């Protein structure tokens, strides 16, 4: 994805890999880094989707899925950027800290439609658990998506659609 050229408000239909993780997995990654100096998931070049899937119905690689509130994880955003995460996807307005970090690291934040989980399920073609299966829905998952509708919410210049 041409992250550097995207402007806040621009829509994107994203196809490609995503790394799904949310509050608990990020907290554990940070604790792991503090304890051992390394982490069990390579985050370099990944796009992180803040989400926790429902149980998969028969015939689907993953269950109903959709973005969770991003601002809850703003304090852990720099950790992700420093390990090479390219962008994050979630829902809702973030704190000024997130905007500042997007500018400093030249990274973007996207919003995905929330409360649209049944429709988004069909956009996920492949899924596997990358780490922390004991966290159940909060484990780290690698997924492959096709035509996931997104809106650029914070671009690399720090323009934020929620503050326009």
């Amino acid at each position: 994805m041409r992250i550097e050229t995207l402007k806040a408000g621009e829509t994107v239909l994203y196809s490609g890999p995503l790394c799904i993780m949310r509050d608990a997995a990020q907290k554990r990654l940070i604790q792991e880094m503090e304890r051992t100096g390394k982490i069990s998931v390579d985050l370099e070049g990944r796009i992180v989707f803040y989400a926790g899937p429902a149980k998969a119905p028969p015939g689907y690689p993953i269950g109903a899925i959709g973005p969770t509130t991003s601002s809850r994880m703003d304090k852990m955003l720099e950790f992700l950027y420093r390990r090479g995460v390219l962008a994050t996807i979630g829902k809702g307005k973030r704190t000024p800290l997130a905007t500042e970090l997007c500018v400093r690291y030249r990274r973007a934040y996207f919003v995905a439609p929330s409360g649209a989980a049944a429709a988004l399920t069909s956009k996920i073609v492949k899924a596997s658990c990358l780490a922390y299966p004991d966290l159940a829905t909060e484990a780290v998952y690698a997924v492959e998506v096709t035509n996931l509708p997104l809106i650029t919410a914070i671009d690399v210049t720090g323009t934020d659609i929620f503050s326009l």
Partner: protein
Amino acid sequence: MTRFSEALVRANTELDPSIREHLERYQGPFADILKENERIAREKRLPLCQDTGLVECFCTLGQSVALEEPLQRTLEAAVANTYGAFPFRDSTVAEPLFRRTPLKDNVPPVVHLFQTEGKMLEIRFLVKGGGSENLSRYYALEPSAGVEEVENKVIELVGDNGAMSCPPLHIGIGIGGFSEKAMLNAKLALTYPLGTRHKHPDYAQLEERLLRKLNTLTIGFQGLGVGPTALSVHTVYEPTHIATLPLAIAVDCYLNRKGVVRFED
């Protein structure tokens, strides 16, 4: 409890028709996928939202009903069976602070029990997501506070944070009682049907005025500025202490997944 289980599945997979009308009129960002979602969820019995909530039950039990087991146990079994059988999400953890170990089958539900006369049982319930729950607020207002202060608290809360909780929102307001009763009433208010008003004219006017004011905030669907900001405001009041004016605000996302099941003899 089959009827309660069926109502739980319905709340998770079928959008309330009066909310669907608002969705159908919406033409802004993500309009197509939100409408597609409503249809797919209904047709394939998939959850409207991956956050299939914590189930909150407000039960009114007639005094002459003798139950075979505690209601908490019956409801917990019903929630476990339903969430075990459908592709919903198990969103509960066993302990909130130290370990947060995930639990299976989305138990326990939150159960509140009230008593009334006669031989009946009414269960009102909410399927309440975490994103909207994080906007719950309690304010210990001074007893001399006026209605403007109440309105300002609601407007300020939604104005600052409404975009995070999947608007257009439903607002429940509990006024009076003591702190915990006010919050309980705010939650109970979220179970009331769209378009209904408080029977006390002062509170009915407060609800209407707040709904009007909230909709001038132009937060819109998904917080992206198009469409309504709030779909409903309901209030519940209680007597209170001379020194207090408790105000609790509870917020629900646009789906407002809820139901009422009544058993009568």
